[in-house]
């Protein structure tokens, strides 16, 4: 593994600054035929809630121009099953970053406490899922609520706390500053943009949940802009994501200010894409005799 790509973000040692985004990579083990999990900076595993969730009914995905809408609705086996069955299977194979979502501030605290165990590298607070009514994004669109969730999670865990921000806000820097002040160790962004598609033959929404989260190449410019803005506003490291499909896309995020990047939707079309991005980044840096830190936040304005 190339030394040049090694990095450390809030104490997590990463072999590359390329991570897999939550909800697009299962628990990592689904991708072992295509990916050397140790070569990833980490796997942000499928969102975990206190109780198991079946997710939304009806159609859950649809392709859109240069992207896709999803409304899975945080289907997951619940924290107990994650801790007893899944974590023991995966913990020594990768940096496990557990994405969590709750219906209340207390839920986040409880989840943070339960997941403060060996084998978990960090927790990522999902305060930005647009597909559930009772949680997530309620906390991600209000600075006070975002801060409350962050400080509560911090209180109950010794792990680094990453806060995943929603792009569905007027001013993302306001939320970023609020979670940084509340103790966030790292900020990840962006989650999906809320969207909708209507079938013109049936006049009904395509998705079972009516609206869904837009991801894929189409959202990349929005994500780059938001990473750039947040990088100007906070000092904590940023994990940038949103529509990354190639090493060139990833490099844009580093230049905008991301210390690491996560790949999401692109894993669906090409399950080996994270490895290709890591190799492409390595070549880009080597051919210019640069280190990773030489490009982070170095966009010339």
């Amino acid at each position, binding site marked *: 593994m190339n030394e040049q790509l090694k990095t450390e973000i809030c104490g997590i040692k990463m072999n590359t600054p390329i991570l897999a985004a939550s909800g697009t990579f299962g628990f990592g083990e689904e991708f072992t035929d295509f990916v050397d999990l140790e070569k990833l900076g980490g796997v942000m595993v499928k969102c975990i809630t206190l109780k198991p969730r079946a997710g939304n009914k009806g159609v859950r995905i649809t392709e859109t121009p240069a*992207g896709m809408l999803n409304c*899975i609705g945080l289907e997951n086996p619940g924290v107990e099953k994650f801790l007893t069955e899944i974590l023991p299977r995966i913990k020594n194979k990768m940096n496990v970053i557990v994405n969590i979502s709750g219906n209340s501030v207390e839920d986040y605290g409880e989840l943070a406490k339960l997941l403060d165990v060996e084998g978990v590298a960090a927790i990522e607070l999902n305060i930005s899922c647009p597909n559930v009514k009772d949680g997530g994004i309620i906390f991600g669109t209000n600075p006070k609520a975002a801060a409350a969730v962050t400080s509560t999670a911090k209180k109950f865990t010794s792990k680094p706390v990453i806060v995943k921000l929603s792009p569905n806000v007027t001013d993302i820097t306001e939320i970023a500053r609020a979670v940084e002040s509340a103790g966030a160790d790292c900020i990840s962004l962006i989650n999906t943009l809320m969207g909708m598609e209507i079938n013109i033959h049936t006049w009904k929404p395509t998705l079972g949940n009516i609206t869904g989260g837009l991801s894929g190449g189409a959202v990349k410019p929005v994500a780059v802009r938001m990473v750039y803005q947040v990088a100007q506003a906070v000092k904590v490291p940023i994990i940038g994501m949103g529509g990354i499909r190639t090493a060139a896309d990833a490099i844009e995020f580093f230049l905008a200010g991301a210390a690491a990047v996560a790949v999401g939707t692109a894993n669906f079309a090409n*399950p080996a894409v994270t490895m290709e991005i890591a190799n492409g980044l390595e070549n880009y840096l080597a051919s210019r005799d640069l280190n990773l830190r030489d490009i982070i936040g170095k966009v010339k304005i």
Partner: protein
Amino acid sequence: MLKIFDTEIISNAEVSANIFKLEINAPELSQIAKAGQFVQVKISDEFTLRRPLGIASAKNGVVKIFYRVIGKGTEFLSTKETGEHLNILGALGNGFDTNINGRILLIGGGMGLAPLLSVAEKIDAVDVLIGGRNKGEVDFWIKEFRAEVDKIYITTDDGSLGSRGFVTSLLPEVLEYEDYAALYTCGPEIMMRGVYKIAVENNLPCYVSLERRMACGLGACLSCSIDTASGRKKVCKDGPIFDAREVFYE
């Protein structure tokens, strides 16, 4: 082990209105593919998602796929020509059991006949009950199944070929002629439920191949999750073949 294959198109021709038969040169895939499995086909770089398509045949280095043009992805796929390359992820899913003792009856409606063809080519004691809207929709299936099965039963909605009606109208009669060890079915859900009901009445095991929208095909995105008698399952990974009792339990 799953792999991404770079394959070459041998032919991609319309066999009935909006229904295409795609043949690709894929020696390794054709060796590892099990009956009832599917592949994820990359349409082009312009498409965010692959398209999950059933393997209808896998032999002599050639993989055969049938698809109906229903959206932009399949429309683009239908324009690909002989000699072009196709990036394919596979083989995915669990597949049908092809080691059952006794005769199997395959019951398929429309495009649901595709995965059943892959079963017919793998086992000897097998018959098929083909259902479609009209003669044009079943003619090409008859040609495909002829060399692979002993008996072919046909129904069309309009009566233009075989018996008029649905496969479920003819099925009880077929079960009177012959003792079957199991029924394998794929097609519209309402048809499969009807087949399952008749299977229960005749005390026969029934296996169904389900279809759902899916993004990854690897069990990660959870687009294709369903409720079953034994909890949540993923059609892409735990299926697409299920014991009908598991999925039509209510």
